[in-house]
């Protein structure tokens, strides 16, 4: 019993932390630039395909792919910001439409290039680790540690580096920030690119434990939105509790009921939570 419970909890934790990465990217783009990025799911998909392609087509190691995925997706993000998003600031609903158009196009490009069938990314860390109470797959343990490390690094970056502090300043008041010599346009481009890169990294990291197909992004897109909204957009750290609830509860419920039903219940729950507490579940004291 304890064995099952621990396994279940670890599964939920790894899913939640992976979602946190993806949702953090979304929150950066939304919080910094007020852009609702519906291409986020497609960014994740591209990241997953990079990590599939690097071993399968180029014969290089998975780890090279894990490094390349955020770089490639980040570059795609920078280009999209430069040629599309830049012209749509202050047109919130139009960014929703444009990023959706980009998403359709990216997903179709993936289909054209690699077909619609699902790909499997071979597990780079086979085997399991005996944790005493339970035996748990090595890669999933790696995933937990990896996501935690990235999250800590990102938050430390915002807390401690000058660039991080400046980025937070741009979020809070872009006009006041430009009076401090900060180039809003460039900051926005970096933010969009790094938000995209996080989605790409998330997609690459989960690729070995999920099926990689062109439409895999949709669920993650919605789940990350819910994580962001549930946590609240006042603080980036809020994506962590948001993701824990969204991905964690879906994961635990799947043990008892069908995945589709579990997901539906969580979606409905989040919508109700949004109605009751639109500012998010995180208290204002967390805002940074």
């Amino acid at each position, binding site marked *: 019993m304890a064995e099952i419970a621990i396994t279940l909890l670890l599964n939920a934790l790894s899913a939640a932390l992976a979602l946190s990465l993806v949702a953090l990217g979304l929150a950066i783009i939304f919080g910094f630039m007020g852009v609702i990025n519906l291409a986020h799911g497609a960014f994740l998909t591209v990241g997953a395909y990079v990590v599939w392609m690097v071993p399968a087509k180029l014969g290089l190691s998975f780890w090279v792919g894990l490094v390349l995925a955020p770089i490639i997706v980040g570059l795609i993000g920078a280009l999209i910001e430069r040629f599309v998003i830049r012209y749509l600031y202050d047109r919130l609903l139009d960014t929703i439409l444009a990023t959706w158009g980009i998403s359709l196009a990216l997903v179709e490009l993936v289909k054209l290039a690699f077909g619609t069938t699902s790909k499997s990314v071979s597990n780079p860390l086979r085997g399991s680790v005996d944790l005493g109470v339970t035996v748990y797959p090595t890669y999933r343990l790696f995933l937990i540690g990896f996501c935690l490390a990235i999250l800590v690094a990102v938050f430390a970056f915002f807390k401690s580096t000058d660039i991080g*502090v400046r980025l937070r*300043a741009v979020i809070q*008041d872009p006009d006041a920030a*430009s*009076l401090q*010599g*900060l*180039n809003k346009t460039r900051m926005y481009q970096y933010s969009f690119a790094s938000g995209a890169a996080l989605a790409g990294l998330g997609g690459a990291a989960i690729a070995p434990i999920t099926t990689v197909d062109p439409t895999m992004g949709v669920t993650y897109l919605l789940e990350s939105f819910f994580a962001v909204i549930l946590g609240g957009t006042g603080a980036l750290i809020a994506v962590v509790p948001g993701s824990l609830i969204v991905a964690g509860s879906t994961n635990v419920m799947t043990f008892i009921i069908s995945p589709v039903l579990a997901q539906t219940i969580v979606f409905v729950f989040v919508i109700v939570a949004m109605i009751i507490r639109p500012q998010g579940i995180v208290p204002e004291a967390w805002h*940074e």
Partner: protein
Amino acid sequence: MVLLELSDVHAGYGGGNVINGVSLTIEEGTVVSLLGRNGVGKTTTLRSIVGVISPDRGTVSFDSLDISGFEPHETYKQGISLVPEDRGIFPDLTVSENLRVPLVDTDDERSIAEIYGYFPKLEELQDSKGRNLSGGEQQMLAIGRALRQNPRLLLLDEPSEGLAPQIIEDVGRAIETIAEEGMTILVVEQNTKFALDISSHAYIMADGQIVMDGSTNELRDDEERLEKYLGVHET
């Protein structure tokens, strides 16, 4: 040497012009004030200097460089710092984080420790969030932050606004200290007494134009005209 020169600047927001042909010059190393009642175009003048809005007509030149049409971050790089009327404090950043925001050139910056030297109160408050500061503390932080890049020209928009008399005195002393070190300052004020005390030359605006200017000593004696443009007595 003339550091800043506005010639015949027209600017406004969406159609209507707020200022119509403002011309003024500021000599390096002086403190100049720009006075006038609410809504005569003082803030708009400052905004068109730093590039928050770009002039529809006329030129702004800084150290002989035409900077009309520059973006705020570009005029900042030229060495112009504006402390806006609303102070522009980042509410969820701490005092020390607020001081880390400005882009500084390492050769020429003033360290955060130096800023604390001007405003010891800020050091005590360094871990408080911007939103929790009082008006006076916010004003000190805003001025301190603007000093970080050691600007060649400091623009202050109503530094005394909404502050209690005791605090106004503190802010005034700080401005005088900075001025004594040789910084060029343009201060926009409604509080005439305050402004005349800290500056050596003043311009007075009405209806989007400069209507008179002179040394502050001359102006102090011209009570009749001061009343006309600045006072609340019926004319």
